[in-house]
């Protein structure tokens, strides 16, 4: 009898999928806790795909996108102020301004290609969803940069080498951007992207654009006579190597 009852009520344990695609979709579920700024920050770090789910389901798309942009702007500003403490003077307000403008402008010029490349990868998402994904990338990257801000501050007060700090900032930016890019990559898979190769190319282009932006809006760290140097145009690798040579 006991055995019969056991067999009737027995439910098999859930099958744990080993499929990598299944893992990539983990967390693609409705957003819990409402569409508020603290909740979005929390979910960006814990369950970022739930934000993409809301965007795709057209639940508060405008509000979520605006809040993500706000998170990105605030985070980049805070990070920029910490970067500005290296030189103080005008850089304390110029560095955050340049970082916020530079990164948002980079996102804006890369948005059309992100949409087309995700389409080429077979993703059937709306333009608003892809825009939201890009905002999520920016917001997550910004949040992670804030996490690194104390480290940057520590080095900015103890080091006098512009080259060293510049190198450190670039490394940190690439690390944080890779987290952001992996979020967009996972979102793409959750939404049905079949071919991720195109997205990898876009990720590379996005990184190159942001790195070039550091040279376009120079100087971001260190103090120079002019706030901007639009007259002398350089490729970022040339500029960086020039800086290293100068300091040596």
């Amino acid at each position, binding site marked *: 009898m006991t055995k019969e009852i056991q067999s009737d009520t027995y439910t098999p344990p859930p099958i744990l999928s080993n499929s990598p695609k299944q893992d990539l979709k983990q967390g693609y579920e409705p957003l819990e806790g409402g569409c508020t700024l603290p909740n979005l920050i929390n979910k960006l770090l814990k369950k970022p795909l739930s934000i993409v789910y809301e965007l795709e389901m057209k639940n508060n798309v405008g509000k979520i996108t605006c809040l993500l942009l706000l998170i990105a702007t605030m985070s980049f500003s805070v990070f920029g102020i910490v970067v500005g403490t290296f030189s103080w003077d005008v850089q304390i307000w110029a560095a955050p301004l340049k970082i916020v403008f530079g990164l948002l402008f980079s996102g*804006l*010029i*890369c948005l*059309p290609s992100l949409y087309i*490349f995700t*389409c080429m990868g077979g993703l059937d998402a709306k333009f608003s969803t892809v825009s939201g994904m890009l905002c999520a990338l920016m917001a997550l990257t910004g949040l992670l940069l804030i996490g690194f801000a104390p480290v940057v501050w520590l080095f900015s007060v103890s080091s006098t080498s512009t080259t060293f700090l510049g190198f450190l900032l670039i490394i940190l930016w690439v690390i944080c951007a890779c987290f952001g890019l992996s979020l967009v990559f996972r979102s793409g898979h959750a939404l049905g992207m079949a071919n991720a190769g195109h997205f990898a190319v876009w990720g590379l282009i996005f990184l190159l*654009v942001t790195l070039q932006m550091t040279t376009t809006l120079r100087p971001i760290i260190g103090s120079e006579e002019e706030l901007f140097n639009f007259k002398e*145009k*350089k490729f970022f690798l040339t500029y960086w190597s020039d800086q290293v040579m100068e300091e040596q």
Partner: protein
Amino acid sequence: MSMNPFANPLKNAAALCRGKKQLLTDWIEGSHRGSIPFCIALITLGCCSYGFTIGLRHGWEMASYVAIKLPFIIFLTLFINGMLNAMLSLALGSGIGFRKSFQFLLTGFAIMSIILGALSPISFFATLNMPKPGTLDDTTWHGANLLLHTSLIAYAGILAHSRLLHYVRDFADSPSAGTHTFLAWLTGNLFVGAQISWILRPYFVSPELEVEFLRVDPFDGSFYEAVFRAIRNVTNF
């Protein structure tokens, strides 16, 4: 999907990039009116905007010239090769006739133009970051500019044609005949397209040369002679 592609252009352009078979089936079967003008509009818009960013390094005049010439190369190639493409596809047993082959190739170039159009803001940013011609290291920057745009155009072309191959294999009488037809089209278009682009030069304006719509000697020589000369110069053979 709307019957007229112009009714919802963004949605149709995105569907084209995604490789929606139903959309192309409707276009090929002719049940959707306006597919050819829609592709022509996409090619014009995408190539014009990208061409503009190529020429911008040499000022507004050159930007306008390249914006006009880039879509013109595609239309001229399709016009000159139209008959040949249809004949080749029939001879290779794909069952794709004149109108369909034209529609296929137009669609392929439209996808390429969408990609180029989407890359235009990035190309614009790259151009803004390049020193003006005539300044220091002009030869290096000219080479870098040439390499950047050639790579981007080649990438867009490869992506668009891989999508086109997928379409042609689906629509041909047999997948292998579709592949053969596609390769024949590709060879013919590359062969003729390279010469047309040679005639319509300049685009990047080599250092020490003037900005002009066409060179004074547009029909002097060929693309292949120039490549042969370049190889001979490099190898000293």
